């Protein structure tokens, strides 16, 4: 039987293609199924941003809060996303409260970014905590958000909210909204 000299090469290329295409797909599937179960049954209430001791503009605080509500709704990770003060939240059985405290803020300048490219970045660092109604910390993370090149200063709040939502999605906490399951709280990263 005559075999072409190209056959091994074709076989190798096909194998590499299969590995390159199938494995990431399988990984993504596993990852998405994992994140879907991580917050199953939970609802979240987003509290207003606490500026801490920093002199953070009120428009920034509001922008972080609004972007957080938007981003958490987009992830579809929680059954319901409530705003602070929403009286419907008190009737929901598995409710987590998301508290955001600003730890660091660097006021940037869009003009400076446009002129120099390397300086004038607006940077925000916040501490995000997920707590139960009883005040038990389920999750605590420090998240950054910034705008370095294009976009207005408020763009940093959008990036920050997206990072917080992403962090929550990638984190895991007890599947059931029963308070007893919450004793294994995750340490701060």
């Amino acid at each position, binding site marked *: 039987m005559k075999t072409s000299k190209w056959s091994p090469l074709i076989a190798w290329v096909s194998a590499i293609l299969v590995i390159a295409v199938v494995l990431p797909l399988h990984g993504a599937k596993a990852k998405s199924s994992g994140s879907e179960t991580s917050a199953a049954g939970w609802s979240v209430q987003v509290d207003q941003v606490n500026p801490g001791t920093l*002199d953070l503009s009120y428009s920034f605080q*509001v922008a972080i809060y*609004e972007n957080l509500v938007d981003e958490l709704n987009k992830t579809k990770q929680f059954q319901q996303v409530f705003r602070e*003060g929403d009286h419907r939240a008190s009737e929901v059985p598995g409710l987590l409260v998301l508290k955001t405290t600003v730890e660091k803020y660097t006021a940037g300048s869009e003009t400076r970014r446009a002129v120099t490219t390397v300086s004038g970045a607006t940077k925000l660092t916040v501490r995000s905590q997920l707590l139960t109604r009883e005040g038990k910390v389920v999750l605590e993370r420090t998240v950054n958000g910034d705008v370095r090149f294009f976009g207005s200063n*408020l763009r940093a709040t959008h990036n920050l909210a997206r990072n917080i939502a992403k962090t929550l999605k990638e984190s895991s906490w007890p599947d059931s909204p029963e308070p007893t399951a919450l004793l294994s709280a995750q340490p701060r990263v």
Partner: protein
Amino acid sequence: MDRTVVPRNQRSTCRFHRRAGMRLLAALICCGLTVAAQNSTHQTASKPFSIRTTHLMGFESAKSNCTGTLSIQDDSLQFQQSGKSGAQIKIGSVQDVFLGDESKQVGGLPMTLGKAAAPFGGGRVVSLFAHKKYDLLTLEYVDSDGGIHGAIFQLDKGQGDVVKHELRARGVVSSREDQSKHSAAEVKYENK
């Protein structure tokens, strides 16, 4: 001498009447001024008000980053994008109003692309001058379920104060001091 002699007690009575008359007149003038002021305030409060603005985020169902008209009529605050139905809230639901300012590059995405494409760093020179100061009007209001919302509008410099004044005339309180340090820091950056 034909001088009429007025008894002393009659003269003092006359003086007393004159003083009382003056006091009454002064009181009437004060009352008149107060009523006039109240009328003018009431007229200002009930007069419809509208202004061109850019909605950045958070106002009910309005699209983010779109330009439209922010209007105040009777007891409602409305934002209407040109040619589309508007979103509105009750002025009574507005809990706080805050005014800040921000310097932004003008021209949007087309200008940014143009500046990036300009040779010999010409875009950077353009950026140095192509910025404008805006007022950022931030409102905090509650929805029918009690949930807190925040809305941010971008207005031309100086117009934010007008809207804030209008809202305050209609009973909206402003518990926070207007932004000063943040903008000062930014100005400092830009002046370097």
